[in-house]
């Protein structure tokens, strides 16, 4: 078998999740990669823990496709960049490819708006999953895989509010994509 065939026939999709320690970046990337695995993709994810947990920058790379080789996203090739902390957009923007999609609490403001009956998705503890809901609107992964991944990676007492935040963000973003030009990855 020629490895060249692997690379040309099997495009790999790359997602970078970034923020600062304590924002749930690692949890979010665990949920994302678990959902992708459940849908049958080959998945690799890579991140740096350690000192970063003391409030420093945290960045997690998730790559999926039929077959993934390097676990790290090469600079300028990420299809999606999800940033949870405004100050971390600058340091991470270079990983995104030219027409890649940037998702931040600002770009997705309407999808993570709070609804009086529900916990605020912008709240620190829910932001990671809410932004994952926004990202999910772009990925070919069925809802059932997402639900199983959310349940499998969060403790039970957190299921309800996280699933609500996720579904709301996913639904709003999906609707928004329907009314904009869906063929363009960059909707705005």
């Amino acid at each position: 078998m020629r490895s060249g065939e692997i690379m040309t026939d099997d495009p790999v999709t790359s997602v970078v999740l970034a923020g600062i320690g304590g924002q749930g970046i690692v949890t979010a990337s665990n949920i994302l990669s678990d959902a992708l695995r459940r849908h049958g993709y080959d998945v690799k994810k890579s991140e740096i823990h350690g000192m970063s947990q003391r409030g420093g920058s945290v960045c997690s790379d998730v790559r999926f496709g039929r077959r993934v080789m390097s676990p790290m996203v090469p600079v300028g090739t990420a299809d999606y960049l999800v940033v949870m902390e405004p100050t971390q957009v600058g340091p991470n923007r270079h990983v995104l490819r030219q027409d890649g999609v940037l998702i931040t609490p600002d770009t997705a403001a309407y999808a993570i708006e709070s609804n009086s009956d529900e916990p605020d998705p912008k709240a620190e503890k829910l932001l990671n999953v809410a932004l994952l809901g926004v990202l999910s609107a772009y990925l070919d992964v069925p809802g059932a895989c997402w639900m199983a991944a959310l349940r499998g990676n969060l403790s039970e007492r957190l299921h309800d509010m996280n699933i609500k935040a996720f579904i709301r963000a996913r639904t709003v973003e999906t609707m928004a994509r329907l009314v904009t030009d869906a063929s363009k990855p960059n909707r705005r």
Partner: protein
Amino acid sequence: MVLMRVIRDQPIPFVNSISVYEKRSHTMEQMLLTGNEAIALAARDGGVRLGTGYPGTPSTEILENFDRFGGQAQWAPNEKVALEVGLGSAYGNARTLVTMKHVGLNVAADPFFSAAYTGVIGALVIAVADDPGMHSSQNEQDSRRYAEAAGVPMLEPSDSQEAYDYTLKAIEISERWNTPVMIRLTTRICHSKSLVTPLRDPLNTRPAAFQRDIPGLVMIPAYARIAHQRLRERLNEIAAWNEKEGPFVEVEGDADTGIVTSGVSFMHACEAAPKARVLKVGMTYPIPFRRIRKFADGVKRCVVVEEGDPWLVTALKAEGVPVTGKQERYRFGELTVDRVRRILNNDTSPEPKPEPGRPPRLCPDCPHRVAFAALSKANCIVTGDIGCYTLGVLPPFEAMDTCACMGASIGVGLGLRHVLPREEARRVVSVIGDSTFVHSGITGLAEMAYNPPPTGHVVLILDNDITAMTGMQEHPGTGRRLDREETPSKLNYEALALSLGIQDVHVCDPVDDPEDFERMLNDALANERLTLIVARKPCPLLTRKTAASEASCEAAKS
């Protein structure tokens, strides 16, 4: 020496060619695991009787997961003790796993070299995690050199599946040749997740037993001379096996460029040069020279792509294998797909500078903040140590003047006190965390009592009741074991210091009364006696974690 061998009824899954990768279909049996989790699972499935080590990023989660999977996992006070416990277990015919980060192997080097001489009866697998790029370490030493220096066979996995497979393979090699085996990991193997298909049935185990073998296990010179010869013969046998049956992956490709690689670099290389021919070496020591030479002879240009030191390329060149290596600048930091592309293209243009991220810092409610504020105010010369509190070097405190290795704070402080003029010497304070103190500060304290400097000395233990920096690991001073079970007794630093002959021993809660702490420090500096101050306040992250786990236990009960 008695050679005991296992007769297996379970074949070990083994990657010999890339086609095996392809055969692994996406089934429900696949798990998404980090390399650390995969090693822990393999240890469980491979019948490892005892896992021991000392926490260190990126190796820490191996033992934590081994415990989670039902194995017997223990934190030792340091890596040397861990390896000695592991060696004893393996002398007793048990399968044993010892884990550490790269610098931990420096601490464990003494038993590591002797273990190679004596060999083992059961299995001894030593997982060593390097940290190229120093994400969370004080150096980027390349542990592959240790395998060669000590004569310990070494396997290097490229992803989590291989981390799983190679751990089982290491057990097999260890038992077959009665040798310790090293699994060399890097941050991107330890902390990356990829799919793993585990064994359906665990391996058979055998009972622990000790059989006396004095010339084999007692390293007096007369026996050690024989042991050294035996070691070299064993390595020759393993080398011959590696040439024929070793864990290689060969990727077909054009004969223009051939790549010899190992570890995670294999993944980068396949992506950077999809048309190249690749030979991935799974067991990099003993180096399979013949196999690599045959590969190199079959291509126009053969490049060695390796992370860290130019170790493999140097050895291959010395053997006359026609290969080239990388430019010196790629010795520093991790390799990436981009960097491998540059190596292959001989690209000498400057690399893009990485964007600076936000550095880590002491948590807002960290009790160490009080200590560093006082040290800074008193204009101390602070000999520091390794842990969260090393962050005291950063603004606003900038209250650390040296930090070399685990436990060095006390020795370095004493050295300065011995030679500096009196007015300067009396400003020197050694600052060390509780876990680091147990790891290798105790002997420093013995030195302090034994060879006291003229101005005395002040040692400050910042006791937050946990190994915090690596993510809340227990140690002999916390009174809890790896699985959080309480121990019948715990190490008492104050009593220990008094018994060693330290004159003044004080304990305080720095958060409760910062002024009292400051006064205590200034008095100690003025007194010129041998003083130990224990600043005791549990890490707030630990307190919150304990509260959260208690709450979830309560919730589960109701």
